[in-house]
């Protein structure tokens, strides 16, 4: 798949995702900003496996900064595109604080998981893929691992209040 084709599809997906969170015009503008950044700063990134996570990262940064700015100004979602800054993907202090908070929540939540879920998550974080995890956990099929993973993620999400990000709660 060519880069331009990937970016076109990405724009469509980002607009729809942002619209569900910010509102119509802002979502269009946000998607445009993401593409501009990908074009100007990450022009060397061509692969799908890199472009999708990168675009998701940029989109999230922009949404977070829009929210922070909106809260500071006492506005709701009425944010002018002129006020939207291009994100620097190096973490800013606010982002670092949010990550720290999320890590604290996550650390507390994982301790409440069941033994199997803790084993599974540990193996995942240690860099094992699902096939290796299947062997290590002695599961009969990889689908068993997928099922366990789905249940464990659901349980972990519930323990964290329904969202990974604490500020949304």
């Amino acid at each position, binding site marked *: *798949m060519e880069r331009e084709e*990937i970016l076109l*599809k*990405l724009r469509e*997906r980002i607009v*729809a*995702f942002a619209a*569900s969170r910010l509102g119509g015009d802002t979502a269009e503008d946000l998607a445009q900003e993401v593409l501009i950044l990908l074009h100007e700063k990450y022009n060397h990134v061509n692969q*799908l*496996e890199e472009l*999708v*996570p990168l675009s*998701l*990262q940029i*989109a*999230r940064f922009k949404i977070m900064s829009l929210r922070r700015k909106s809260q500071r100004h006492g506005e709701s979602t009425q944010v002018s595109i002129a006020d939207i800054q291009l994100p620097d993907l190096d973490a800013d202090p606010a982002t670092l604080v949010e*990550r720290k908070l*999320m*890590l604290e929540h*996550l*650390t*507390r939540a*994982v*301790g409440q*998981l069941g*033994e199997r879920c*803790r*084993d599974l*998550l*540990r193996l*995942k*974080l*240690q*860099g*094992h*893929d*699902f096939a290796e*995890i299947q062997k*290590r*956990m*002695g599961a009969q099929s990889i*689908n068993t691992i*997928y099922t366990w*993973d*789905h249940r464990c*993620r659901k349980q972990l999400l519930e323990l964290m209040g329904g*969202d*990974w*990000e604490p500020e949304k709660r």
Partner: protein
Amino acid sequence: MSREDIQKLLGGYATHTLTAEERRALFEAALDDQELFDALAKEQALREVLQDPPARQQVIEALGPAREPRPARAWHWLRRTPALAMAGLVVLIVAGMVLRLPKQARHEVIVADAVSPQAATPQSGAPHPTTTGLPENALPLTLSRKAKQTARLPESAALGDQHVLSEAANKPAAAPVPSQPEAVGAMRQLDELTKKSQAPQPPPPAPSANFVVGALPSASLSRAKVQTITGAIADIKYTVVLKGADGTYTPAPPGNVFHIGDSIRIQAEPAAAGRLSLFRRGAGGDWEAVSSLDVENGQRYELPSSGGIESPTPAHLELRLLFSRPDQSSQAMLPRSDAAAQQAGAAGYAAIKIELEFR
């Protein structure tokens, strides 16, 4: 890959668990599937936290120490199993011994609960038998006795001449009965335990009085007492009979007074086969066998079968009527609870202490 399969890969996005092929499949699908793309976007926050190595390590530490792999756990379990089995076996053996000991003690000796008809109701709340440890080579007794009771005789009480010692009915199978030395040993043990249990017992109210032969014009003239010794016992009816002028023994009539020269016997009718023995405490305090008989269920016997119990001088006579039943060693005959033991009266001895005063 089907959409379902792609959805399964979602859990590997944040943790970087996916292979290159899986990532490509997931992202290609996400470009055409808004729902999947939104789900990926929601995972982004977690992914960003977990892609930081220190943060990742912190979460791993929060997960606690890793369990051993399954084969290792299985091996350890297999190693533990024999030890657990041995421990379980030991527990079973000990439990079996503990359960067995009380039963053995229970069926070796059962001591009677002698209750006079009038006293039956008030005494129903009396202590139940307890198992008592005895010295080595001694016959263990299950004994819990009521207080030694000395009640004044009612002026015109119409007491029956037969006294049911226990309500419990038991029909033991015929079996060898204890020998005379065994019975004497049991009497000694019974006596010792009776002495120990007499002192702290408060006197009961008069209506729950002991067995009294006859109604006497004066309570101080003559008394016959039954020492109540609680325990399970088969039905035994007994009567104090007095030798009349014609030489025959008849139930002591109400108002009769025992005097020097009177000759009495104990007439007993056991409800089970066994051996009846009558003992009398001698001057030295030892128990002397007066008479002993092998008895059958429902038959009436008199002890002693020849002669009678007499006192040449004013005296306080202590008698013990001991009924020993065949040893029922069969587990099936053993009672399954203490209450059942009281009711069923497993094999053993039933002893009734009778005190007579001659003036």
